[in-house]
């Protein structure tokens, strides 16, 4: 029986046990490739489990599935409660896909054993965060991600890695300080109403939160998530961390860890504090739009490819937040989908930029020129990922952005209009950077740039396939996201006494799912 097997617990345990195994097998005893191979095998098994979860997932059920809940610490009311729904399913899958590819595509330059160990621990912590249904359990995993991320940046990063790692750590840890106090406060609020101390999310959503309490708690939770995502103006750690991190660290920070922030907002803020979410939506929408425009503008003036991608991510995260705080089905579905899309696209771009660095020892746009002729495949793959990032129809970025803009336009027209400007600027800086790096007359050192090897092609191939597939046929994904999103929207609307636009939700979500297939790549 599929439901009885604790898939989700296994999903966390496999990488965690793998990390322990890697840590316990000393390097001296085994061949030099052993730890990397073991790490790859573990992430592959995790991917297989995630695939099994996806297959077993019931598409039209919007609630939590495969829930397994066990008492962990009675005295503290903490449960080992895990479950998955349409919102977290594809984030889990994204995590499972990206870890093995990253391990293959961005190997450690030194001490592979520790590197693989931290990577596996990071995977376990990310998986745990996405499936945790107990607030303390979520917090445990959420915090746990910091340690491996810190060591990955600090141990394998570039010249200013120490500074970047510490900045990253202190910013995010400070954000979580408020989160923990907020979590405990919600649980005590719930206890004062029901005399039961629990951190179980499905129980806590019934807590009655008054207006002021709600706003304060919402802010406490959002502080942690906004730093993690990062949302403007809490983003200042991210360009440093992303640019100083090793390629693998950067990929996972942007593609997976950043999603913990936006996921946390959707999962916890909206569920626990619907009223405050609605009250403060204009504030968050404004921050999102400022992030979109500011990120795009600052990206325009970056001379460093990695920093350019960091600021472009800020804009993308702004889009996700925009869709989230539209607080309707289209916007939220688009936001969730865009999390996956952005993860795939930005991972591809960071891996490619990492390879460019391996060949040329530079990220400076100005010192690269005309790479297209010596490395046509690299240029081609870069083109696809870049166009997806811009949001060209036929690639995955379009579907998410379209849904987000539709949802926002329905709810908050002028914010959507302002955000659209960001898309245009995004096209400007990405195309400009592309032109500089890949077009033009290659200098002598540019001609020596080798094209992607077979191994490297195999690493990006799945990513490109997914980018195109999600662009032309997002329906299976949206079919699974939408029921959970609708459920959440109904919850928010019920608590805030907003009439539910029943018919609107379904029809409009189905429409854009077909539209891009007629578009095609320009």
């Amino acid at each position, binding site marked *: 029986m599929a439901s009885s097997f604790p898939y989700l617990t296994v999903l966390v345990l496999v990488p965690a046990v793998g990390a322990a195994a890697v*840590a316990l097998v*000393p390097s001296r005893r085994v061949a030099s490739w052993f730890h990397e191979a073991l790490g790859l095998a573990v992430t592959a098994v995790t991917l297989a489990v995630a695939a099994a979860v996806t297959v077993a997932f019931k598409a039209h059920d919007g609630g939590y599935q495969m829930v397994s809940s066990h008492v*962990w*610490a*009675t*005295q*503290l009311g903490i449960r080992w409660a895990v479950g998955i729904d349409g919102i977290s399913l594809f984030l889990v899958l994204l995590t499972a896909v990206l870890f093995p590819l990253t391990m293959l595509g961005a190997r450690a*330059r*030194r001490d592979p054993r*520790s590197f693989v160990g931290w990577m596996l621990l990071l995977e376990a912590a990310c998986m745990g965060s996405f499936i945790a249904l107990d607030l*303390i359990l979520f*917090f*445990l*995993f959420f*915090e*746990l991600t910091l*340690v491996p991320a*810190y*060591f990955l940046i*600090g*141990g*394998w*990063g*570039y*010249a*200013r*890695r*120490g*500074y970047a*790692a*510490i900045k990253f*750590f*202190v910013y995010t*840890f*400070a954000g*979580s*300080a*408020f989160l*923990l*106090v907020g979590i*405990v*406060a919600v649980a*005590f609020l719930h206890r004062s109403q029901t005399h039961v101390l629990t951190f179980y999310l499905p129980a806590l959503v019934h807590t009655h939160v008054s207006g002021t309490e709600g706003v304060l708690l919402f802010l*406490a939770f959002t502080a942690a998530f906004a730093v993690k995502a990062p949302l403007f103006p809490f983003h200042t750690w991210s360009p440093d961390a992303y640019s100083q991190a090793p390629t693998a660290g950067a990929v996972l920070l942007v593609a997976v860890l950043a999603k913990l922030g936006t996921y946390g907002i959707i999962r916890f803020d909206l569920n626990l504090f619907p009223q405050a979410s609605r009250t403060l939506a204009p504030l968050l929408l404004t921050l999102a739009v400022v992030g979109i425009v500011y990120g795009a503008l600052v990206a325009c003036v970056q001379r460093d490819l990695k920093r350019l991608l960091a600021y472009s991510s800020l804009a993308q995260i702004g889009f996700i937040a925009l869709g989230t705080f539209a607080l309707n089905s289209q916007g939220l579905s688009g936001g969730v989908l865009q999390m996956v899309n952005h993860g795939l696209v930005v991972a591809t771009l960071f891996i490619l930029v990492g390879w460019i*660095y391996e060949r040329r*020892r*530079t*990220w*400076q746009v100005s010192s690269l020129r005309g790479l297209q002729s010596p490395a046509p495949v690299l240029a081609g793959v870069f083109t696809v990922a870049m166009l997806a990032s811009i949001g060209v129809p036929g690639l995955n970025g379009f579907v998410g952005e379209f849904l987000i803009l539709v949802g926002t336009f329905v709810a908050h027209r002028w914010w959507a209009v302002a955000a659209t400007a960001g898309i245009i600027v995004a096209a400007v800086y990405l195309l400009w950077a592309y032109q500089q790096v890949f077009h033009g007359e290659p200098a002598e050192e540019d001609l020596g740039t080798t094209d992607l090897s077979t191994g490297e092609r195999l690493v990006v191939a799945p990513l490109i396939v997914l980018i195109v597939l999600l662009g032309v046929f997002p329906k299976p994904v949206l079919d699974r996201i939408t029921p959970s999103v609708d459920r959440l929207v109904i919850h928010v609307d019920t608590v805030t006494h907003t009439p539910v636009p029943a018919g609107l939700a379904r029809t409009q979500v189905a429409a854009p799912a077909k539209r891009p297939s007629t578009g095609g790549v320009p």
Partner: protein
Amino acid sequence: MTALFASAATTIDVPHVDYLSILPMVIMLGGAVVLMVASSLVRRILGVSIGTWVAMATSLAALVAALVQWDHVRTHGPSVTVAGAIAFDGFAVFVQVTVAAAMLLTALVGDGYLKREGVEGPEFHVLAMVSASGAMMMGAANDLIVVFLGLEILSIALYVLAAFNHRRPQSGEGALKYFVLGGFSSAVFVYGIALTYGATGTTNLPQIADFLSRNVVASNGVLLGGMALLLVGFAFKVAAVPFHMWSPDVYEGSPSPVTGFMAAVAKAGAFAALLRVFVSSLVTVRVDWQPVVWMLALLSLVLGAVVALTQRDVKRMMAYSSINHVGFILLGVVAASPRGVSASLYYLFTYTFLVVGTFAVISVMGRPGDTGNRITDYRGLARRQPVMALAFAVLLLGQAGMPFTTGFLAKLEVIEASVADQGYTLAAVAMLSAAVAAFFYLRLAVTMFSPVGMEGDLADVGTAAAPGSANLPPVPVAGPADGVASLQVLTDAPPEAAVAARGRVPVPGLTAVAIGTCVAFSVVFGIFPGPVLDFARQATLLLA
């Protein structure tokens, strides 16, 4: 003559003594006396090992006695004995267990240290056991006079222990500072007892509570003064800001095993008495003292975390880190609730293992003469001694409050107690300070994992000026320099010569056992928190 004796005997009312209630401290003190007497009876100087084994056996016996006590309290309920001077409740037993465990671990760590430093004789263990018995007495004290007795037994032995390595000038300096300031704070404490007695007419804690619950003190200046002075005395012992000035010097100067012992046992004893006096006896006037303790907690949290950032010496850093921990434990005191008490106890118990383990590693890493205490001395430890580096990393992360260690649960407990008492501000400040504190724990951890000669973390800044650096050749800082080119890659090979110059430090077997125990405790009970939490939750105060 006999008639005279008989009449005298009838007038002296000998109080009933429930010997079980004082058994652990009697065992602890007895062990110390036996060891002391034995060392003066035999001709030759007793070896360190004998002292270690006696101390271990004594601590184990005290631990077993405390567990028997626990069983007794669970079945028969709490009681008072020795004319109400000693409380026999779950709280007291919990403190006995904490102190006995700390003493056991310290005996293990001390053994390796004493042998390495060439200190002979069993005096170290004798003094540690005496000090531990004082802490145990403070945990069970139900009368201000007994609190004071325990405090002095604890402190006087500690003054000597702090100066134990007389070959190190810092040791003497720290101990003298500790002695002078400690003596001063004891005097303040006694004056506090006197004023409290003046205000309430008794020094017995339940009677004070009883008096305050029945009477409204019209002019309560004397009581307020008494409470203030008591609080100063306690704050000094636990090193809460602004009464913390002694602790960095004393932590740095004392032999590392003593520092660990001090951080665990002196805090356990002083906090136990603080909790009993303020949360159970003076609870009716808590509006008067809560704001003061609130302020102490706030200052300790912030200052401890922030100043630790600037330290280059691991022991000084740990001194400030322990000040930060004091702030957390005070959170439970401010809450002034049974939940707060159990949270503070849980914190003390788990902190004991974390801090003794941490100082066990520091003790080993100190090398002969305690010369290897700079942060940079930990560079490349992971490569030389991966197991010890991993153990130290776990202990540091535990202190930082990382998930899946007891350190996180301890912080969660006090935060919960604080939030339950509407103390949102203090809870938020505490967690923010934990974020700052995590930074310096991690900096140390990363230093261990970065190879010698690898640039890029903050541990290098200003090391040249660190005290004690004259004894060792300066750390070679080679490799790709910071800021030369922002796009430089790491080089793989650290200068092997530098690694060889530092070499492995020998880890004595017993110390390894102590470190292993501390790490295992912190991780196992971090993942399966049930038993210890139950223990702390049931360790209730007589009156609460």
